[in-house]
């Protein structure tokens, strides 16, 4: 296994997040603590509404925790930081920029010289397999291609941590599989620290080095499972016994949470 840890990258310490509406408050996360080691590929699985998106938004600095704190490389996260590159389910590409310009965006913000950022962008466009589409505008691309542009845009910006919020949920099954394998290969090659959110157990098993199962309302960690499936991984890994075993364990845990959350809703 290659998940050797070079120290703690992200430390989530007793984080509580409360959203106050007009009439009531929702406790999205309650006293959640978790450490992410450098080079880990964490996949957070949970039923919808369990606060996993809230958690990743806190790490990215889009929102501030009500209590507790998040430490990135020894420094508390106080605002939006380009150190945590976010990939959204809705791609969030700039429609008025070409593929090339989208991928260059982060580097342009860093005031990187034009020539350097053009070359670097070209390299990452190539890595995600979009060579030849540099001059296309996003609305000419398919969903899968858009998400690859988004991944290239994040990678080109060289963040310390990659955050992915259900990035493949809107894609069809075949495209999803291609992208999953592509992401695994990128991870195997670049060893970025990754936090990935999904509600698909298969996706979690295929991608992760560690799986975190979250409970619903208030969001807490129900279970952590180290995914020891061997690398390099591809779709074939789904046929192994170890895969089935892990899947069952996670499913039991997730199912219990889903049942609980349904009970809450029927109250």
């Amino acid at each position: 296994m290659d998940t050797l840890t070079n120290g703690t990258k992200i430390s989530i310490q007793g984080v509580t997040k409360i959203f106050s509406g007009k009439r009531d408050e929702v406790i999205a996360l309650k006293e959640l603590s978790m450490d992410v080691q450098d080079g880990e590929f964490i996949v957070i699985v949970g039923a919808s509404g369990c606060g996993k998106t809230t958690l990743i938004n806190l790490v990215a600095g889009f929102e501030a925790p009500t209590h507790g704190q998040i430490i990135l490389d020894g420094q508390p996260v106080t605002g939006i930081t380009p150190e945590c590159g976010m990939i959204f389910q809705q791609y969030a590409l700039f429609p008025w920029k070409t593929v090339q310009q989208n991928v260059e965006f982060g580097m342009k913000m860093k005031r990187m010289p034009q020539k350097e950022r053009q070359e670097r962008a070209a390299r990452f466009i190539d890595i995600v397999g979009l060579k030849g589409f540099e001059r296309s505008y996003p609305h000419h691309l398919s969903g899968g291609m858009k998400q690859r542009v988004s991944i290239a845009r994040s990678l080109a910006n060289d963040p310390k941590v990659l955050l992915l919020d259900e990035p493949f949920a809107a894609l069809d099954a075949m495209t999803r599989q291609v992208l999953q394998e592509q992401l695994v290969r990128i991870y195997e090659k670049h060893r970025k620290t990754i936090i990935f959110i999904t509600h698909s157990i298969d996706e979690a098993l295929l991608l992760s080095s560690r799986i975190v199962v979250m409970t619903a309302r208030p969001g807490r960690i129900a279970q952590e499972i180290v995914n020891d499936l061997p690398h390099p991984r591809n779709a074939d890994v789904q046929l192994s016994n170890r895969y089935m075993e892990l899947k069952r364990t996670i499913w039991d845990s997730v199912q219990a949470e889903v049942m609980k959350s349904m009970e809450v809703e029927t109250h």
Partner: protein
Amino acid sequence: MKIDSTAKSLTISIVSLLIFVTAWELVCRLGFIEPLFMPAPSKILFRAIKMIDNGQLIAHTLASTRRVMVGFMISSLVAIPFGIFLGSSRFFMAVFDPLISLLRPLPSMSWIPLSLLWLGITETQKYSIVFMGSFAPSLLYIIEATKSIDPLLIRAAKNLGASKLDVMREVILPGSLPQIIAGLKVMLGIAWTCIISAELVAAREGLGFMIMNGKEYFQTDTVLLGMVMISITVMIIDVVFRKFERRLLPWTR
């Protein structure tokens, strides 16, 4: 197929225009309407030929067009950055909101006495009327346009390291540009109403002056010719604007 259908609708438009003009001409020729109240199209045409011949028509049209364009450009150049700034800052929006609310309902004509005192009988005074008439509504259009931006894009830009200024320049401006341009097109029409009212006072050229002077001399054909010229000029500017728009918004093609 597509060319066919556009050619077809163009034909229909031309035919309907011809029928309308012919009916108008007939009604006038048969004496149903006194020429003082509505001159025949042919009379307007003769007036046009006469005024093209002595150079007045072109001079009036160019004078008004120049005034509209200068006033409108200055207004847009100020309103676009300011509107984007206000659209992305709750604090400054709150600061300027009362002032904008006070300015907005003022018709451009109400600025004529003050502008004459401040700027005198100058071209700048004419530009200022167009500016005052179009600035506040343009600003509101632009602020509204900035609200149409997907907040996710702003979030993504910040996540990629964009500063507040970067967000305005790289995200809010291009993102709201289609709506801004649509708004400015409407504003251009309003700018024309401003210049016509500005030219009613202390002017010696321009389509507004031409209409006013025609009215003073009961030359209804001159009045109508002035109105037709405004329509034609706005139509031409609209076509130019559309070309410009396509260049400015390549991603919408």
